């Protein structure tokens, strides 16, 4: 996990518009990121061979909060 986390070269592809994302090196699994091109909210599903696997983020649900 820590080795993955420090890899600064990881990229992922937006599943909606195919834009290539290069998020900050401290990105974590399950983190939500906006696609810089189509603005779709994406979630980091997992790290795979140095790549970020992204999918569309879950919609905010009624019981979300603090």
């Amino acid at each position: 996990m820590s080795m993955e986390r420090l890899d600064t070269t990881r990229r992922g592809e937006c599943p909606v518009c195919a834009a290539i994302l290069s998020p900050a090196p401290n990105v974590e699994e399950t983190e939500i990121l906006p696609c810089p091109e189509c603005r779709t909210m994406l979630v980091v599903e997992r790290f795979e061979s140095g790549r970020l696997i992204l999918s569309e983020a879950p919609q905010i649900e009624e019981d979300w909060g603090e």
Partner: protein
Amino acid sequence: MTTLAILHSTVRKEEKLIMEAARDRRVDIELIDIRSEVFNPKGYAAEFDIALERSVSTTKGDYAVAFLESLGLPVVNSSLVARNCEDKFLTSLLLARASVSTPKFALVFSLEQALQAVENLGGFPVVLKPPLGSWGRLLAKVNDPDSLEALLEHKDVLGTPPHKAFYIQEFVRKPGRDIRVFIAGEAVLCAVYRESGHWITNTARGGVARLCPVTPELRSICERASSAVGGGLLAVDIFETPDGFSVNEVNHTMEFRNSEEPTGVSISGAIVDYCLSRAKGNS
């Protein structure tokens, strides 16, 4: 070495700050995405010393905490504290019972009783809130009986059963801000003003956080509010009124991303330190 389990769903900036603070303290972290867990007590292997509940979903967080507590594992915050804080009616009842100043409130199930409650609270405007909810969502400032009738009819027809419990609170005229105070156990960590031109001042809704001095009076009411709900890692939301401070709500999985910078206090660090103090063998 102590292992801190972070029970999470979607990771927010707060969880990342907590992870960073734990790593700075050389604390082992076990990230548990509760959406991927099977909570079956038979054979569940828990290899941590303390769990911190940080789920963005209240429901899922509640079940995860209840499960781990049933195995005798220490979890922050406890299921009791979570229950007391997540339901605004329960929070208000506990504050009132402990004589902590809080806005006047009532809970009703029908329009007729709602109109009676508004009269008892001092008249319109009032604030209608879902008893369960966060980030200022579905709050309504209700200015007159017609609006109240329309809102309640909508909730009755369109809402799920929890939305058919109508929590009504007196409308408090705030000076364009409220106060959020962060607490870790016995320690009042720091406070921010949440400033907004809108009557809903949540920073999740665009409110801006600025440093608020923790006066003895503010400290005292927060300590009493924390004690009323069971204590732990809490954020107390407070109104300033002509009669003094009034506690609006208490949050049990607090968001603080906008509050470390203006206060200069590492809230994430205090959260980790509090967890360590409650870990197996230290509590």
